[in-house]
């Protein structure tokens, strides 16, 4: 996946000279996860800017540069570090287009790896999608395959809106054959992963793989789950989601962010608001525990949703 993201960056930077990258160790080091490897040699030190360790300020710098016509891609070495940039992301990134009465647009892409990895400890295992979701003026997408990573990165760079692109630490080495021709994924659309009839499973990012693993078990047990990768965390693609609910009448949400105030919580409300009449069972939501991610492997596994829990949940819904 890191190569797909890299390809997207290279293609967009070749197409549009105002696209630039800024972040810690993105230049000479090639990026902590190799997403920007070789870019500094290709495009120069100013276009692929190695910043000092000052997230709030260099994110703000990206925003100021965007107001003056550039299209920066700001990398948080780990999504958790962007907590330090929260001031700029909320107050300036999300708000300036509005408070300026539409005079300045902020076409930044803020991206980085988040999610629970392999025993990285609590602070390196954060899921910021729930923290950012209330910020007005921001779009959020989460990629999960090399295909949609490249497509979403290109779409995010081309978008006039500020977009936060959530990548996952454990998915960078995913491999997939992707088209040679240029393609873009729609920022606002969800992705149908596996059509089915019995239950709608809504998920995103790494949990997609846990869901698909659970789906194999479920199919053997005779269930037919429909799996949708929502991809767009804000706004939700209520059309794809709605059509699925109208077909299956049962919903299970599987997510990696915390239970409290998470994406699942908002998704649940949106579904109840719009599709209440189509539901035959209460919406179930499986999220990570409200716990700082422990270091110990057994505890870390217990923090996130595992395929066995997904299977059990589907069995419960479909009773």
């Amino acid at each position, binding site marked *: 996946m890191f190569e797909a993201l890299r390809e997207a960056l290279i293609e967009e930077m070749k197409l549009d*000279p*105002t696209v*630039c990258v800024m972040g810690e160790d993105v230049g000479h080091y090639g990026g902590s996860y190799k997403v920007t490897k070789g870019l500094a040699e290709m495009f*120069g030190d*100013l*276009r692929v800017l190695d*910043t*000092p360790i*000052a997230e*709030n*300020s*260099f*994110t*703000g*710098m*990206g*925003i*100021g*540069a*965007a*107001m*003056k*016509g*550039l299209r920066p891609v700001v990398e948080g070495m780990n999504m958790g570090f962007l907590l330090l940039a929260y*001031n*700029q992301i909320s*107050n*300036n990134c999300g708000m*300036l*287009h*509005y*408070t*300026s*009465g*539409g*005079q*300045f647009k*902020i*076409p930044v892409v803020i991206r980085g790896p988040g999610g629970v990895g392999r025993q990285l400890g609590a602070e390196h295992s954060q899921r910021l999608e729930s923290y950012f979701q209330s910020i*007005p*003026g921001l*779009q959020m997408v989460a990629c999960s395959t090399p295909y949609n990573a490249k497509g979403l990165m290109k779409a995010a760079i081309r*978008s*006039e*809106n500020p977009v936060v692109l959530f990548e996952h630490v454990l998915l960078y080495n995913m491999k997939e054959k992707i088209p040679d021709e240029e393609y873009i994924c729609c*920022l*606002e*659309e969800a992705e149908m992963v596996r059509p089915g009839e019995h239950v709608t499973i809504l998920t995103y990012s790494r949990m997609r793989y846990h869901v698909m693993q659970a789906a194999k078990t479920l199919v053997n047990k005779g269930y037919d789950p429909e799996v949708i990768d929502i991809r*767009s965390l*804000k*706004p*939700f*693609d*209520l*059309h*794809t989601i*709605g059509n699925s609910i109208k077909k299956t009448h049962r919903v299970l949400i599987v997510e990696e962010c915390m239970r409290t105030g998470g994406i699942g919580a908002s998704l649940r409300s*949106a579904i109840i608001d*719009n*599709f209440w009449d189509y539901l035959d069972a209460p919406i179930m939501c499986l999220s990570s525990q409200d716990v700082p991610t422990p270091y110990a492997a057994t505890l870390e596994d217990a923090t996130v949703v595992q395929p066995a829990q997904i299977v059990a949940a589907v069995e419960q819904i479909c009773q």
Partner: protein
Amino acid sequence: MAATSFTAAKFLAPVAARSGGERAPPLPAGASSSSFARAMRRGGAHHPRLRTALAVSSDVLAGNKAQAAAANPAVTREEALELYEDMVLGRVFEDMCAQMYYRGKMFGFVHLYNGQEAVSTGFIKYLNQADCVVSTYRDHVHALSKGVPARSVMAELFGKATGCCRGQGGSMHMFSAPHNLLGGFAFIGEGIPVATGAAFAAKYRHEVLKQSGPDGLDVTVAFFGDGTCNNGQFFECLNMAQLWKLPIIFVVENNLWAIGMSHLRATSDPEIFKKGPAFGMPGVHVDGMDVLKVREVAKEAIDRARRGEGPTLVECETYRFRGHSLADPDELRKPGKDYFPVSFYFFASLVKFLVLTRLSGEMENGIKASLAKFVAMLKMASNIVLMKTDEKSHYAARDPITALKKYIIEENLATESELKSIEKKIEDVVEEAVEFADASPHPPRSQLLENVFADPKGFGIGPDGKYRCEDPKFTQGTAQV
């Protein structure tokens, strides 16, 4: 100019790189023998990037009041009148804001700039249209100096749809794309990274996009206060700006107070200009109540930035005559005990009034003149007493507008009546701005969601499969995604 007064020439001295051959300056007695200290003594051979940057202080700081008040840098008649008009516009506008606020036309937090006009005028009047200004919540006058029409600013303050931000920003969020005013920020320090970004974009345009202006790089000026200089974003941006030699000037409007927190109680080393050389950029202190001195420093800093020599930190000693905001009771800056001089002055004015109303003809002129002199003397005496006890009066005596007026008249650059006609013109402009704002419509409900996203597809796809923004009435609806 006297040798000891602050001169531009001092400031022009180039930033000297310390190469391997040069010797480092001697360390103070008791210096440590750490490897870093030893390397410093060896002459910086291990630290090729060490530079000596200047810290230049003004005569005001040195306590040299005579020099501070003495010879001002030369200025032409046109320039002087432009500066005067701009400062008067700032003052009259802010006074009108206070009136309008107490009449219930303006709401929320309104922060007025009275007293600090020299800083805004001194810097911004030297900029081009393409140069950027980034400010704080005390931004009305920065907007006016940059060229945003008074009526747009007033309408914005009234919350009307004709305001520069369509009524969506308010007092603390003034923006203008055509004038390159990049805000207007409510949280302190927030604008400094944005200014750094604008400067970065200027450098990027020049080096990557190969779009160069005839004068050099487009410059960005970031204004902020003394309180901000203890904030992380300030230091982080000083570092980045110097690292990449960005065309930016960091202007500290040190008015000694952050709401009720005295600068001296909040800052370990209150001399802010000295923090510039710590990052390798020149740090300059200037008398922020003297527009001509500010302008001299501004010229040097802006020209430097345009040439690509990098940022400058300028600390302007200034003062706000009003409270932090219109809601601030301003109790910590109480004037000193002044009962005696004030009552004496009042008594003398009363005598003058009573006598003059009972005189007639030629006698009146003679007695009028001597009474006027007597009263002026008493006023001066009371000022001197007050100066010793009271910060507010000390700075009121250094009102930048009065100072420039005095200078213009003494140097015969214009007559008193010409200046009065400028003042009258400005009063008309501000009155017209109020009328315009009053007459303007409030924003309609349909404006609510228009500017949330530059691309309204960001509101997403609704259950019916269409993008929400395809519904023409969606902007007045509910912002849900």
